[in-house]
């Protein structure tokens, strides 16, 4: 059992959620409530990571963040090391790969709030910010939770992008999924089996927690 790989996986999952949730809530709400030119273009861009082969995504991320690109150099001065083949690089890649898993459920959640409810909140004297915090966010909360779980579970299982951008550095970029592949290549079926089972248990527990939580949250508004 590669404990450091498990740790990298969990850190990556939590970090991805932390980065993506505020962004996802902002963009999901904008897409749900505003009608602007180019909205469909944004929606299409959000979906790209969902349909693009992970290796293609990984390739372009490498090119974008490589040491020779301006963006890569900016990160180099910021972090003191290059983005590719580091945990930070993995985090950026994972965040981008998970955009559709976070934005789409949240967008649906905000779309499900009837227009009358928003209007009523405004007529109760709530400022836009108060409306968001006290009415919209609590009502969209189950979908935000779903988005977080989806992103977390997807990050644990991500393979292609991680391998392309992060490589296989123990304790830095070797996630559990990579470790399983690594062990299988080395004919170490037993370790691979243990890690696969661990991943399975974590996934099942997460999904169980989601259904339970969303039922409790959902029960408040049913």
């Amino acid at each position, binding site marked *: 059992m590669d404990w450091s790989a498990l740790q990298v996986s969990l850190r990556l999952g939590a970090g991805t959620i932390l980065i993506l949730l505020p962004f996802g809530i902002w963009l999901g709400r904008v897409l749900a409530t505003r009608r602007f030119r180019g909205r469909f273009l944004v929606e299409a861009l959000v979906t790209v990571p969902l349909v693009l082969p992970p290796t293609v995504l990984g390739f372009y991320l490498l090119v974008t963040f490589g040491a020779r690109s301006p963006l890569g150099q900016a990160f180099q001065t910021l972090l003191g090391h290059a983005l590719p083949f580091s945990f930070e690089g993995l985090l950026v890649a994972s965040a981008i790969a998970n955009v559709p898993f976070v934005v789409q459920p949240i967008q649906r959640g905000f779309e499900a709030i009837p227009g009358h409810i928003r209007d009523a909140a405004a007529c*109760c004297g709530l400022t836009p910010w108060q*409306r968001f915090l006290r009415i919209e966010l609590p009502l969209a909360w189950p979908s935000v939770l779903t988005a977080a779980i989806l992103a977390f579970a997807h990050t644990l299982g991500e393979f292609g992008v991680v391998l392309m951008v992060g490589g296989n550095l123990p304790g830095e970029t070797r996630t559990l999924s990579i470790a399983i592949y690594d062990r299988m290549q080395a004919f170490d079926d037993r370790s691979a089996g243990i890690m696969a089972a661990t991943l399975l248990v974590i996934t099942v527990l997460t999904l169980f927690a989601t259904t339970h939580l969303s039922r409790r949250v959902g029960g408040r508004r049913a």
Partner: protein
Amino acid sequence: MREGRLAVSLRQAGPIPLDVEFGCGAGDVLAIFGPSGSGKTTILRSIAGLYRPAHARVSCGADVWTDTDAGIDVPPHRRAVGFVFQDYALFPHLTALGNVMVALGHRPRAERASRAEALLARVHLREHTARRPHQLSGGERQRVALARALAREPAVLLLDEPFAAVDRPVRRRLQDEIDDLRRDLAIPLVLVTHDFEDVVRLATHVLVLDQGRSVACGPLTALMSRPDLEFLRDAVGLGSVFDATVVEVDAGRGLVHLAFDGGRLVVPRGDLSIGTSVRVRVPARDVILASTPPHGVSVQNVLTGTVSAIHPGPARDEAVVQVAVGSLLLLAEVTRDAVDRLGLAPGRPVHALVKSMSIDVRVVGGATPRAAQ
């Protein structure tokens, strides 16, 4: 609560055509009446600042809320508007009390809960205040919506089809309560409805709307005395509406005498007591005209007046005759032939016979016979 007259002027060609200009004084109830899709709700939304027509001016007292010419557009949360939505639009994740407390942001935090309790009690909701909207009945939801609209201490109260979703007995009670509120609050109250009963029961003024255009606008009594409003004739039938007071009770025969400026009417309403204010509607189809005082007829109500106008009726051989009885303008639908035979013409004296049974009497104001409803 702040006092001030609401003045509204809205104009645009599309996408929702609008062409209306109206006012509503403090303590008045303006009913916007018209078929569905005629732009009624859009007018309310424009007043609240939730919709912005191409050309609009909305002001309440000295406050200008919208003025497209001057570039003024106060956002909805800064307009002192109480809005009761058609489906109530209660916040599903909050209790009845919580829903009302949301609109009490202008009050110190410590007194919001007790204030919300008091508002709910005012609309007669004392139980179930800890329940969420889906656990409340339709009538209870409406009370919460009403309390929430009042919580803001509005300068204008807007009600969108307030009785559409409740059954008849609840409807009557809610109508009474809104009538009570009107007198207590002394603010303009604008009500949207497609049900004429709401208009007769609650309104002091009416705006008749058709495809966003104002067809007629004015005090209810004056409007209902006009013989020429085709829309009203088609939708509800012509008939004068006026206010009267119970002055005599004939308990033995189950009759009461109503006095109005111009005469008296006898109606079979044993449940009313002396001093009760009522609103009376006399359908034009049930008024018979006579050129000489009639004798030996079963009709008790004979009003003497003069013909003030004659208007062509809905069919070719019909006519609508407007008769001035004191300050009351009574409408009668008769045949053209009858107009000729009686020699009716403006200025001629005439006797109007009204069957007691056909007179529609509703109690307004004063709480006297509420239990009887």
